[in-house]
């Protein structure tokens, strides 16, 4: 689906209506039956002229509460101070992600990409209806009017939009509202014009995350989870929990995946859960250790033919390489990784008077949560509401085709008499040990170079557990057996790579796996960019020049990728190189429609501990709607990527996860990383992703810096096994 196909349909489908609402003002005072008008599903205006953008994407820090609000404000003609935001209810007919079909959800760095035209249309339609109402009242031509800073202005007249909200809704809904042209933009792409809309509530403790929900009569439920993937409850003993303060009951979940422990408060639920002894049936449990899984994955890229030949012909490539003057042959390994968002997983199911329920959740995929509740609780769609609140990070974890924690909460709720709200709380230990990891992957690459140092063959084999197979995502992303997310960034590389073949061998299910910020690019970018740096070293070529030579501008993507490299060269003063005593590593990657080049300067290396002194980043994400949000996403994406390649992994011993909490799944700390400087390439192309694309180049840029500093060439992650960090 293109971004514009639904434009007309949405405007026609958006039956403008006036509704009388009683709502809470921002200051908590009950507003006295103030009239609030839904001009269309995305624009609400109250009687005082205060505008609310209805934001269909959840806020995990990546910025849509600011970005989509910016689009409405720009087109409507209000200042950022005259507009608030609210999260959309679950309604996939109206609030679907236009790139996901009839499905409401946030992911794949698509929030701005799929909303850019839709939200501008919504704001422009509201503007034209307000203007039509004023023009009719004033007896002037609509074309003489505009809305500026919330005032309808023109023909010598001026009035606040509040005066015409009621009459605007009876105007014809414009099928093709005029969008403001870039030369008219006051907000989009303007440095300093927009501040984050979610800052205020995040610095004074007033913001509501799902963890902050509290109902006076609620039950808190924690789940005693199986220590091994696939184990089920055989029996449990709650003798010691009985009589504990606040303990209510313990029951086995209907799917036997765990024991639900109910109490009156979170702390009491934690205490009671610890007191319950569960006997597990390990018949179908994963009993292997991660060392075994690692050996299997590496064997999967070492041996014979790959299951799927996704690009080129392996025999032709092997023949080409057999005649090479020099062969670089490297095997890479990427461990399981946890997402570990700051807010542990949690949601609340609240029964309401009509016999239905409300799910309060930092809902990344409201549609899956919605459907899951209807199925588990036997309710029709209209009896389930999903109310989205702030999410304390996600990195992919809150978007799950199995809706796992919503499902747990629904099963727990179904074990009660359904009269009291049930709040599910995961601890950090649940989060680290509870599965849904970035799958482990192995790559082996053999690159053949001729006498002149030119690439004549690139034999690339990948093995890992598919993220998409067996999920609702399979029809969209798996084609001819190939899970595109396993090979993205290699098989579709932007570079000119002569004689390239790419083979994929799926690894049998070892753990529950899930996309993790930047999905397949978490490993594919590391391999591609490490290999290219090794080629540059081997051929004594400048690593930036080598990359540019592989991007001769034969496609728009090659031109844009070269563009970010050149921007990075300028930003980092590439020719002068790293400061004295430091070494610089480079990487560039294309993901989620965007192009990002990064350079990492490190001190140390060789015998000295490595310290990340500075990171440079150049990004081309099309039109930069909110430049400072984009910079923040690059900074965060870099930190997220670097922290994990440095020292994080989830390992299994006889099927049990070894790590338990942050002390042994150590997050990146402030002292680990120096300043990050970001430059945005000016562009008139449609906006593309920013939440994920900053992550892929960060790991290989660090690896390349360490190798150039005289440290090891790390191909087996995490780095901590081979590299000492300061």
């Amino acid at each position, binding site marked *: 689906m293109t971004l514009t196909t639904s434009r007309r349909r949405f405007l026609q489908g958006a039956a403008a209506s006036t509704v009388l609402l009683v709502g809470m003002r921002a200051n908590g005072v009950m507003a006295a039956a103030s009239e609030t008008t839904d001009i269309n599903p995305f624009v609400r205006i109250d009687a005082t002229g205060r505008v609310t953008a209805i934001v269909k994407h959840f806020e995990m820090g990546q910025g849509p509460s600011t970005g989509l609000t910016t689009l409405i404000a720009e087109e409507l003609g209000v200042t950022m101070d005259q507009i608030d935001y609210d999260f959309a209810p679950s309604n996939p007919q109206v609030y679907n992600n236009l790139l996901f079909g009839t499905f409401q959800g946030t992911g794949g760095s698509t929030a701005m990409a799929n909303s850019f035209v839709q939200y501008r249309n919504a704001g422009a339609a509201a503007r034209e209806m307000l203007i039509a109402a004023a023009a009719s009242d004033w007896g002037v031509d609509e074309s003489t009017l505009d809305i500026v800073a919330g005032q309808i202005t023109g023909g010598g007249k001026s009035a606040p939009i509040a005066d015409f909200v009621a009459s605007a809704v009876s105007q014809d809904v414009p099928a093709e509202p005029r969008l403001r042209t870039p030369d008219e933009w006051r907000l989009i792409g303007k440095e300093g014009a927009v501040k984050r809309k979610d800052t205020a509530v995040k610095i004074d403790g*007033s913001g509501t995350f799902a963890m902050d929900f509290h109902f006076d009569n609620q039950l808190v439920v924690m789940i005693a989870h199986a220590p091994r993937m696939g184990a089920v409850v055989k029996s449990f003993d709650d003798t010691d929990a009985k009589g504990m303060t606040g303990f209510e009951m313990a029951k086995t979940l209907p799917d036997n995946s765990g024991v639900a422990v109910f109490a009156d408060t979170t702390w009491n639920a934690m205490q009671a859960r610890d007191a319950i002894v569960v006997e597990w049936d390990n018949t179908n449990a994963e009993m292997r250790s991660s060392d075994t899984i690692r050996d299997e994955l590496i064997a999967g890229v070492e041996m014979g033919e790959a299951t799927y030949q996704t690009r080129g012909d392996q025999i032709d490539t092997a023949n080409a390489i057999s005649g090479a003057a020099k062969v670089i042959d490297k095997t890479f390994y990427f461990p399981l990784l946890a997402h570990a968002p700051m807010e542990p997983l949690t949601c609340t199911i609240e029964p309401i008077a009509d016999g239905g329920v409300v799910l309060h959740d930092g809902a990344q995929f409201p549609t899956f949560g919605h459907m899951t509740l209807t199925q588990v609780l036997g309710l029709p769609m209209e009896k389930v509401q999903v109310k989205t609140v702030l999410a304390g990070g996600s990195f992919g974890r809150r978007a799950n085709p199995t809706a796992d924690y919503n499902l747990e909460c629904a099963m727990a709720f179904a074990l009660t008499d359904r009269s009291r709200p049930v709040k599910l709380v995961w601890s950090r230990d649940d989060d680290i040990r509870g599965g849904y990891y970035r799958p482990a992957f192995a790559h082996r690459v053999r690159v053949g170079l001729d006498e002149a140092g030119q690439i004549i063959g690139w034999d690339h084999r990948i093995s890992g557990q598919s993220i998409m197979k067996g999920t609702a995502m399979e029809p969209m992303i798996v084609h001819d057996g190939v899970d595109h997310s396993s090979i993205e960034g290699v098989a579709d590389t932007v570079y000119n790579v002569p004689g390239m073949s790419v083979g994929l061998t799926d690894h049998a299910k070892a753990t529950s796996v899930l996309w993790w910020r930047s999905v397949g690019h978490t490993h594919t970018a590391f391999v591609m960019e490490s290999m290219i740096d090794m080629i540059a070293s081997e051929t004594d070529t400048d690593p930036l020049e080598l990359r540019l030579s592989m991007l001769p501008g034969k496609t728009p993507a090659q031109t844009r990728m070269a563009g970010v490299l050149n921007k990075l060269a300028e930003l980092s003063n590439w020719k002068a190189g790293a400061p004295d005593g430091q070494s610089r590593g480079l990487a560039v990657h294309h993901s989620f429609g965007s192009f990002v080049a990064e350079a990492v300067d490190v001190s140390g290396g060789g015998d000295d501990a490595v310290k990340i002194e500075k990171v440079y980043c150049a990004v081309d994400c099309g039109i930069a709607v909110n430049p400072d949000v984009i910079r923040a996403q690059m900074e965060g994406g870099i930190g997220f990527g670097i922290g994990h390649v440095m020292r994080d992994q989830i390992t299994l011993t006889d099927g049990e996860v070894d790590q338990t909490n942050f002390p042994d799944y150590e997050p990146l700390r402030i002292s680990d990383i120096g300043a990050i400087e970001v430059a945005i390439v000016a562009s008139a192309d449609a906006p593309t992703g920013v939440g994920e694309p900053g992550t892929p180049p960060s790991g290989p840029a660090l690896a390349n810096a360490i190798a150039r500093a005289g440290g090891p060439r790390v191909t087996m992650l995490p780095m901590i096994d081979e590299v000492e960090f300061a």
Partner: protein
Amino acid sequence: MTRELKLNGQTISTNAQDGTPLLWVIRDELKMTGTKFGCGVASCGACTVHIDGEPTRSCQTFVEDVEGVEITTIEAMSKDKIGAAVQQAWTELDVVQCGYCQSGQIMSAVGLLAENKKPTADEIDEYMWGNACRCATYQRIRAGVQRAAEILEA
């Protein structure tokens, strides 16, 4: 048993049993949710409050140990001179992303500025080490502390 605690300048009573972390008294009993639960083992700093002005992890501070001391949470920071400066700096620089760790970051930043009016980048790193941010807003936190120092100096 009922205990009296001094929190944000007020006296409040709690029935929490010995061994109950202060975090859960604040969140579950007092329904003040600005102080966050992140790890429960004093490893992430999301639950940071001030005990007699000193940043302290409330998830590993027990109710029986805080009788008679001054407990301060994020909810009181706008009325604190340093707290208000830090909040202003955080706003100017748009430090937050998901925001879940930021209450704790701000409580630690205020503690730092109370004892060091003009911290260097290295001093900030050393002091703030225990406050994890999975969104990695670290460079803005660093800049935010230094900006708050400027605001306070002016």
